[in-house]
Structures are given as C-alpha cells and as structure tokens.
C-alpha cells in the first residue's frame, strides 16, 4: 500500500475512533447517571442503618472486620473506598480470615461494581483505543517516521497515550469512574485537532531530524497522559471534599465514588509518575536544543511553559507535604498544572511566537 492510501486509511481510522470514543463517553455518562440513582438509594439505606445501629461507621466496622475498618477509617474511606482500596483492606482480610474479606465484597457488590453501562463504556473505550492505535501506526508507516512531528500528529498520538495510560491504570486501581472524563476529553481534543489541524503527510523538516524527536516528544506525551488522569482524579477529589463538607448534595453520584482522601492518594501517585516523565522531557529537550539551536536553555516560549508546568507540579508535590496545603489546595494545583499543559499544547503552539513552530499549519517561518 502506498503512503497516500495509508494516510487516508489512517484518517478514516481517526474518525472511526472519535465516533467510538463518543459512544463510550455516552455509555460512561449513562453509568454516572445510574450511579446517581444508586447514590440516592445508598443514602436512604444509610439513613435507615444510621437509625438502626446509630452509626454508619459501626456498620462498616462490622462488615469489613475490625482491622480493615481501622484501615478504612484511617484512609477516611467511605464504604465504597473499601473496594478501591482492596490492597489496603487485604491485610484486614488476611488477619481476620475469609469472613472479613467476604463481607468487604458485599459492600463492593452494593455500590462499586460498575453498572452494565460502565462495562459497556470500558469495552467501547478499548475498541476505540485499538482503532486509534491502528490509526497512529498507519500514520507513522505512511510518513516513514514517528507520527508526532506536527500538531495534528501530536494530538493524535498524545490523546492515544492518554487513553493508554487510562487503560493501564485500570490494572492498578479501578478508575472506570473517570471514563466519561477521559473519553470526553480525548474525543474532543482528537476531533478538534483532526478538523482544524489536519495536514497531509510531510517529510521531517531538518530541525526535527533527530533521535531526540522520538524520545523528547514521546515522553512529553506520556507525562501529559499521566497528568490528564491525575487532574481528573483531583477534580473529583475537589467535588468530593465539598460533598463531605455537606455541599454538592445535588450530585448523588459522588456518594458512589471513593473518598476525597482516597482520590487524593491515587491522584498523587499518578501525578508523580507524570512529573518524572515531565522532568525527563525538560532535560531531553534541553539536550536537543543544544544540538539544534546551540543553547540548552533560551527561554523560548515553549521552554517557558514547560518550565512553568514543571514548577506547578513541583509545587503540587510540595503542597502535599505542607500544612494547610494538603488536600484541596494541592488538588487545585494539579488541575492548574494540567490546564497549563493543555494551554501549552494549544494556545502556545498556535499563537505564541517561538522556535517550536512545528504545527505544520503554515504559520511557521522557514528555518
């Protein structure tokens, strides 16, 4: 197959992937609304239980076994968190025997095992992701190089990496409740990029002919993927904090999600990985800049924003260890950081003058 038809096929695959992502998004949203209904039901049950046993915590303690309950309480977990923190409760399960573990599963059945819509959403996401990856591979084959040399290709690969990170993270923790957020963002970004920034396959301009293109840019997309998932968790954390403080009563689905502390802990672990990738991006970029432009750091607009993002996330990591900043303030930093990542990719690429003008959109001057 020649390059042109491969590129065309790749574009068809991109549109198909967008369509399936939209379907997945719809399924995840239906799941969320189903969760809302369950959240209300759970509420009613809790009130009954509270009336019966006086204290919800006491009930949880009976269910999950004393040790697991202690863990759960320490993590500030609601009943649902027990499922997500299955590792945390495994000790409880081990020490109190099968009885405790079995009871924990009952709690899961009640609220945390995804609805049919959630499973549908995840299945659709996997299908869309497969088509998406195929599109990326075909684009790369058509171009005979890595498929992230202009803005459209970067958007295509970057969103692909976001979904990949989201899917891989599922093996670690059940974060399917982020499905609507991830598929929504990806469908939107991929759609906008394809409609607005699509360019035919072109050869690599001389400044990009470097092994660092493969490393620097790909690691940057990896960092973006982790930041995206982390920001999603942080947003939920912020909502959960408000609900736990008595607000957000009109969003009953939050009741079915992990506690704000559990969300924060997960967000932190995801973001720290992103931060490591981002640090590497920064250093690899500096090495490449030295090769291509003769200086490793020159405060080019893109360098500035990469630095700003790095500092914001460094701030996030410090904030989590600072009194008065841990919790909501740290979460805001995570969200601001990811917003800056998106800003860096879109606005800075399109409207800021600088050396990183590789959008392929004929905005760039020559060499």
């Amino acid at each position, binding site marked *: 197959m020649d390059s042109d038809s491969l590129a065309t096929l790749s574009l068809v695959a991109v549109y198909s992937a967008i369509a399936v992502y939209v379907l997945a998004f719809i399924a995840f949203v239906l799941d969320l609304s189903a969760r809302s209904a369950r959240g209300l039901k759970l509420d009613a049950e809790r009130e009954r239980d509270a009336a019966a046993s006086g204290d919800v915590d006491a009930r949880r303690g009976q269910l999950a076994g004393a040790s697991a309950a202690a863990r759960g309480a320490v993590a500030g977990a609601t009943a649902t968190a027990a499922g997500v923190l299955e590792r945390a409760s495994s000790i409880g399960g081990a020490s109190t025997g099968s009885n405790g573990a079995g009871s924990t599963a009952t709690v899961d059945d009640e609220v945390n095992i995804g609805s049919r819509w959630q499973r549908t959403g995840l299945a659709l996401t996997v299908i869309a992701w497969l088509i998406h990856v195929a599109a990326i591979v075909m684009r790369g084959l058509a171009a005979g190089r890595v498929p992230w040399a202009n803005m459209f290709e970067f958007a295509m690969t970057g969103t692909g990496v976001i979904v990949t990170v989201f899917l891989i993270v599922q093996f670690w923790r059940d974060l399917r409740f982020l499905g609507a957020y991830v598929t929504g963002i990806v469908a939107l970004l991929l759609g906008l990029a394809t409609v607005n920034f699509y360019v035919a396959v072109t*050869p*690599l*301009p001389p400044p990009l002919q470097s092994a660092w293109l493969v490393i620097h840019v790909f690691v940057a997309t990896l960092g973006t993927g982790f930041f995206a998932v982390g920001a999603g968790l942080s947003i939920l954390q912020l909502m959960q904090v408000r609900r736990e403080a008595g607000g957000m009563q009109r969003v009953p689905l939050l009741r079915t999600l992990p506690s704000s502390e559990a969300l924060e802990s997960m967000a932190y672990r995801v973001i*720290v990985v992103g931060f490591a990738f981002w640090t590497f991006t920064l250093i690899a970029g500096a090495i490449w800049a030295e090769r291509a432009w003769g200086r490793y750091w020159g405060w080019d607009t893109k360098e500035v924003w990469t630095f*700003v993002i790095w500092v914001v996330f460094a701030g996030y990591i*410090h904030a989590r*260890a600072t009194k008065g900043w*841990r919790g909501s303030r740290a979460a805001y930093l995570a969200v601001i950081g990811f917003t800056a990542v998106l800003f860096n990719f879109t606005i800075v690429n399109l409207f800021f003058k600088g050396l990183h003008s590789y959008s392929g959109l004929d905005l760039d001057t*020559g060499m």
Partner: protein
Amino acid sequence: MSPRSDEDGAAKKAKPAKVAASDPLRPDDYIGSPDPVDARPARTAKGSAAASSEAPVAAKLGPVGWVRFVWRQLTSMRTALVLLLLLALAAVPGSLVPQNSADPNGVIQYQQQNPELYKVLDALQVFDTYTSFWFSAIYLLLFVSLIGCIIPRTVHHLKALRAKPPTTPARLSRLPGHLVSSTGADAETAIAEATRVLKRQGYRVERYDRRGRVTVSAERGYLRETGNLIFHTGLLAILVLVATGGGFIYTGEKLLVQGQSFTNALAGYDTFSPGRFFDEAQLSPYSLRLDDFDDEYSVDKLTGQSHPEDYTAKVSTRTLGGEWEKHDIKVNSPLSIGGTQVYLLGNGYAPELTVRDADGNIVFQDAVPFRSQNSNLTGLGVLKIPDGLKEQAGFIGYFYPTPAESADGLFTSVYPGTSSSSLISLQMYTGDLGLDTGEAVNAYNLDIDDLTQVAGADSATKSLQLRVGEKVDLPDGLGSLEFTGIKRYVGISIHHDPTQGFVLLLAVLAIVGLLVSLFIPRRRLWVAATSADGGGAALEFAALARGDDPRLDDAVLAVERELAKRLRASAPAPASPSE
C-alpha cells in the same frame, strides 16, 4: 523545601511521639512534624490581628532573634511553596511579551506598536523577564530557602545513615500495617528467622529483646532521602554553575557566503556576545570556509507547498598550522572545532552583482546576501555604493528564487529553488549614505530618510528588475547594474560553553535522585514474638511509612508470608504424642 511526600495519613495519626521525634529535621509546617503547640512568636506575629497579644513577645526579639525569625520563615515549607508558585507565575510574562535575549526585533516592533505600554513594561524589565530584579529575587530567595533545607537535612541524614533502627514500640497495635499471627516455633527462632528475612529484603535490622518479648526492628529506604538531597543539591549546583560559568561563555553569529572564509577572531564576527570573563585570547584561531550548500525539498502534490527535507553546509576548516579539512554541518549536527560548536542557523541566496560607472569601469563586483524572509527564501538585500559613481548610491530590494507575479504586479517566490527565471527587483536611492561619519552602520539596513529614490514606485523610473545574466542601465546615466550569477549563503552561530557538560551531568544526577526519592519507599517494620503458653509463639507485625508508601501493607504481608513459609520449612515434624 522538602519535596518528600509526607507520611501517609495513617502513619501520621497512628505515629507514636517517640518515632516522630526522630524524624529528619524539617520545617515545622511539614506534615508529620508535631503540631506547633509551642508556636513561636514568629508564626503568630505573622498571622492576623488576633495575634496582637503575642506582639510583646515578638518585640523582645534581639538582632539574633530576628535573623533566626527571618531564617525560619524563609525555610518554612509554606514560604518555599509560595516562592515556587510565584516562580511559575513570574515566568509567564516572558512568554507573552517578546524578550530582548531571544527576539530583539520583536521588542522593537512592540515598542513601535505600543509605545505607552512599552515604557511601563520596560521600566518593569518585562522585556528581560528572566534577568529582571523580580524574577531574580524570587529564585534567589527560593534557593536560599533550599539551602536552609538541604544543610540541616544532610547533616541529619548522615547521622541517620549510621544510626540503628529505633527501639521497637511497646504497642505495635497502634501502628498501621498491624498484623497478628502465630507460629509453632519458639519466639527466639522466629525472630532470628525474621531478622534474616528482613535483611534479605534490604532492611537494616536491630534486635531489641525485653521481658520475654523478643523483637526485631528494621528500617529500609535510606536511599529515598539520599536521592532527595541529591536532587535538590543538583538543582542548586546547576544554578550556581549557570550563574558563574555563564561568564566564560561566548556566542557569535556570522553570515558566510559561498567561497568566503571566516576566521575565529573578534573582527570575524557579525555579532558577538561575550560573557563577563571573556578574554580575546580565549578565541582559538581557526578558519572556516563555506564551499557549498545543499538543500532538498519535497513538494506537496496537492497544495504545491514545498517542505525542506535537508540542509547541508559543506565547509572546509583549518586550525593553526593544519591542512584544510572537509566537514558537513547540518541543523541537528553542529561542527566541533577549536573548543567551539558551529551551528547552521539559516540559509539563502547571495546574487552576484556588478556595478559599473558611466564609462564602464567596475566599481563593485561581489555576491550580495539577500537575507531570507520566508520559507520560499524570498530574500531582502541591500547594496551600498559609497564611491565610484557620480553620487553615492544605495539599492534595496528583493530576490525571488522562483518568482510569480500576482495580478497587481507584485512578485512572490513560490519555490525555494533557483532557475534562469530567478529575479531581483531593486529600488535605487541616491544621496548621503552616512558612511563617512565613522559611526557604525548596519550593513543589512538602508536608512532611506536622507536619500532620494531614483528608481522605484515613488520615482519616474520603475524598480530595476533583472534575471540572471541581465544588465540594466541605472537612471540618470549613473552607470549599469549586472546580475551575473547566484551563490548560496549560510548563517552560522558559534558557541563556546565550557559549563554545559557539567550542567548535563548535574541534570542527569538530579533526575536520578528525583526518581529514587519519588519511588523508593522508606519504611520501618517491626516483628515481635512472645512465647505462647502451650509452646510456639504469638507474632506481631507492624510497619510505619516514612514518606508516601502505597505498598506498606503489602510489604508487611510479604514479610509475614515469607517468615511463615520459612518457619514451617525449618520446623521439625510436629511431634504431637498427646493426640
């Protein structure tokens, strides 16, 4: 400033005071340090008006007290964090407004377009954001804060590296990751085995036995703090190196036409920016000649746009007393010579022009670089003829490698390659070129304020248009202009930076330190055994995370399982005659 993530919420709450007291020295607003019950006057004085009752205490501070107060404020986590966020914020304006360092022309343009705003921003040094007083103030404070954090923690860590794991707490059940089990083996055997298991898993171990309770205390992950300190020290060293080593850097640019040689001496450069400690003797003498320049383009079949595929400058170099050697310079592969790196920055065309006077005598003959203005290499060039003609004459105009004429008679270049149709279109001026005053004049700029146009849109004669091989008469019988051929030019940039290797080394060290500090968990683990009444022993496990440690419970479980397995394997066949 300590980017260690703190103890797990669990650890924080369950931690006995004894353990907390032995934590590394940290700012007192670091989570995990004891609550500042003994709040210093510093903290409260900083607070609200409600703290006014504390004011007399603050007023009693002597000079030393004030230094201590300021120092503790500066090295607190909160201050470090705020400074960090301020740094991010302060970096932003530099991307919104053109910078003198990166885009001096953009700054001039900005000044012309927004003269009022320019004055304000210029006073605030926004056009030099990254060397401005406010940006410098933030990062200097940040690094002072960093030093204030690194030093005590390094001292503490060096002590901790030699210290034994702490005594086993009396009540392990108060700790997270608490686990109870029992074994048929006796307490001493169980703990001896536990000690081996822990050692094999990389723990430092210490036995503490007391009143029938046999225990082992273990700690691992000292590398976490080591990595953390390496990361921050690395950052600090990079800043110091960049700040001081910057003085030894020099950079310069040169536009080199095919056939021309460049000599690495001050006079050889078009522009030159030396560092503070630059000495001309630093320049190692070498010559570099541009022999040829190759470029390759591909044309998009649909849009007709051309895309560059390759730029190669073929050069010859010669060091003192050496022979000429041939080299290629490409965009991503600079040439290393004489302690400098030579980068290919730009390229374009230099049409060969000949100017003759009215009698046919040659007054000028050379290749004139027309600096590329866009991706199709439309070039803007200036030619000044101060002597030889009846009047001083200046030419300014464009070179179109592949010209296309639009409906309104204007030309554009549609492809970066040249052919016999390549066109030069020049406006000609006469008058005083201002070259005789001795002031430095930009060779690539023609100041037309004091000149009279004799050929061009504003005069009787149209612009002088020539294709290769053509010759036109100059207006007013001044002589003639001939376009004889086309040469290539390249823009090269020459850098000397003795620090960058060290900066790279430090950066790599820092990132390794960062990874270690983020992903290696530091934890303490205890196993206690108490002899049970009917033989065997009751085992108790507990662990404490020091810093973020998502797998603390797994670690306890792993130790428990491994120990159980080994005890079972080593235990003698259960002799149970009673049954």
